[in-house]
């Protein structure tokens, strides 16, 4: 029997004692489920406690083989533990790129499906679920059921976005998108305030990728000032001459790593305000069209391995909500007021227009999503509670892959779908077999 050891998500908080077993085969995984309850864990990039079992945790890191690829259609069949980074390494040189990607490539296929992750193209192309042809799910009774948009559809729609709570995804088939190069043509458009940022998103609904960096500490007339970044996959004929011959060859990025915890005070001293102002000014200077390699464009933080340690030992909390279109601007304003008032260093504020809602329990809805991280300080719980109220008042909801602090109450009120989700779980036997620290906290 494996021993329980401290385990956490990417935010390093909370920490729970979990047993972590890494089966290699379907039979080994089924044995763990039979002995359940258990929760699947991919690469642990969810910020909070979604992938912490209480205590049993099933790591998919040994179920990480690619099975087949069809170069005619771009369909890849792989085990759930395959890393997105490996998919890119393997298929970008052959002219294929993930059709949907989150902001880090160190996630697994199973984790991307379970959270129904969204990327910078959500407004146009939808979330991860749109790219899945089928998945094989290990159910509470040990059976493996293949589900997808065209078969066992209800199970599929609960599972994609179901945070591991319907079963263990063993393998899946996903569609990649063809690309001509490994480069992105990025256009940066400064927005002097929040309304302008929103207007830019709406005007650029046709752009493949759009996302904004938002200065959450600017106040007054500059409140919500943003750099809106639009992107398109560059075609070969858009590359400079010296790159055309090797369109997928981008310079290898230097890897920095943060091997030790930095002291928690560092972020206060080099205040986030100064950082944000500097970033804004650099953004203004760099405005216009630029060719950016795929890695820097999609995964800016991945070049600093272990960057979660810059927040020190006490860790940090992520906050990500989505507000429906009609309430987005006023809701965002109130959130920004609250953040500026609290003066908590919010390093990275990301604003993005989301597209359609799909599937039964996944996060996205048409509107605006705001993602931030905060160092875990004594004042944080109060701030988060006030922000939660604002989200609720404006009809918004929260992203479970980033959550570590919601209460069951708040979830029920912000996301009425959660009651149906919990009912489905108890009716299918999933409630007794698949349990995470998060599902317990949220009474799912």
């Amino acid at each position, binding site marked *: 029997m*494996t021993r329980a050891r401290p385990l956490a998500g990417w935010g390093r908080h909370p920490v729970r004692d979990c047993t972590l*077993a890494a089966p290699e085969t379907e039979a080994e995984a089924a044995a763990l489920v039979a002995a359940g309850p258990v929760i699947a864990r991919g690469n642990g990039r969810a910020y909070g406690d979604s992938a912490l079992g209480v205590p049993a945790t099933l790591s998919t890191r*040994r179920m990480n*083989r*690619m*099975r087949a690829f069809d170069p005619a259609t771009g369909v890849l069949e792989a*085990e759930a533990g395959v890393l997105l980074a*490996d998919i890119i*390494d393997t298929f970008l040189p052959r002219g294929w790129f993930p059709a949907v990607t989150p902001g880090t490539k160190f996630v697994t296929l199973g984790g991307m499906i379970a959270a129904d992750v969204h990327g910078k193209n959500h407004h146009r192309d939808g979330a991860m679920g749109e790219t899945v042809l089928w998945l094989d799910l290990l159910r509470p009774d040990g059976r493996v059921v293949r589900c997808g948009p065209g078969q066992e559809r209800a199970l599929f729609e609960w599972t994609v976005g179901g945070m591991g709570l319907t079963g263990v995804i063993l393998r899946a088939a996903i569609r990649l998108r063809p690309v001509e190069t490994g480069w992105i043509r990025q256009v940066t458009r400064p927005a002097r305030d929040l309304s302008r940022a929103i207007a830019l998103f709406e005007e650029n609904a046709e752009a493949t990728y759009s996302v904004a960096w938002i200065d959450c500490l600017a106040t007054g007339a500059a409140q919500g000032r943003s750099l809106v970044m639009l992107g398109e996959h560059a075609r070969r004929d858009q590359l400079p001459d010296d790159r055309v011959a090797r369109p997928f060859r981008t310079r290898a990025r230097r890897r920095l790593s943060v091997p030790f915890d930095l002291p928690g005070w560092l972020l206060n001293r080099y205040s986030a305000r100064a950082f944000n102002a500097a970033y804004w000014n650099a953004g203004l200077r760099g405005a216009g069209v630029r060719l950016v390699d795929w890695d820097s464009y999609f995964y800016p933080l991945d070049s600093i391995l272990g960057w979660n340690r810059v927040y020190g030992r006490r860790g940090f909390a992520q906050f990500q909500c989505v507000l429906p279109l009609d309430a987005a601007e006023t809701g965002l304003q109130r959130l920004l007021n609250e953040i500026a008032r609290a003066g908590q260093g919010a390093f990275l504020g990301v604003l993005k227009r989301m597209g359609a809602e799909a599937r039964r329990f996944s996060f996205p809805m048409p509107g605006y999503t705001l993602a931030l991280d905060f160092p875990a300080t004594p004042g944080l719980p109060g701030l988060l509670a006030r922000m939660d109220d604002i989200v609720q008042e404006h009809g918004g909801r929260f992203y479970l892959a980033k959550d570590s602090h919601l209460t069951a109450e708040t979830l029920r009120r912000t996301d009425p779908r959660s009651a149906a989700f919990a009912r489905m779980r108890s009716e299918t036997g999933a409630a007794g077999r698949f349990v995470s620290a998060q599902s317990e906290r949220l009474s799912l």
Partner: protein
Amino acid sequence: MTKPPILILGARSDIGRAIAHRFAAEGHPVQLAARAPEALEADRADIALRHGVEVSCHAFDALDHAGHEPFLDGLPELPGIAACVVGLMGEQEENARDMDAARLVMRSNYEGPAEILARLANRFEARGSGTLIGVSSVAGERGRASNYVYGSAKAGFTAFLSGLRNRLSRTPVRVITVLPGFVATRMTENMDLPAPLTAAPLEVAEAVWRAHAGARDVVYVRRIWALIMAVIRAIPEPVFKKTRL
């Protein structure tokens, strides 16, 4: 230029898999060998798909002496590189009392691996080329109460590799000894290992690749282990026998 195949003996281990991927990424065809070759099918497809190299699977039991020659004859071709990661740790408690268990550990870490590499060495010598890679362990550098049955067999294997290297030094055939410290694998899954001293299987594979590409004969995985073992070897026996390491 086509690259020579690498044969992985013990291909179902985490370290064996990692080495296979590392060499395949450089374009080497791969021959996977293990006791349950049907379980290698998923790895075969995976390696072939990711790296675009030929991959074959073969049944191999290090302790089945009679099977060794037919096994080698059955490979698609004599490999250019052979890496042996076969090993068995067992439970020291059990190994101290149950001689059948102890014998299996001794044979699995020394007899089997040494014998198959000896056969390959002779074929490589006759051909006039090849590299043998033996994954032994720092546990073989000094016997300790906590795992001396395993450690002594690894000591035998390390000495065997050193002698083989000495014998073949005037031929083009190379012998590389790999001495991992702690590695996070199935073998050590239930042990509490200190993170700074524990390598990932990929690091072992990287060290093996670098040794192959360079000229080192003996490699530790995570350099700190060379220092740790130098200290451990230097402790005088009257003191050492009282330690609990």
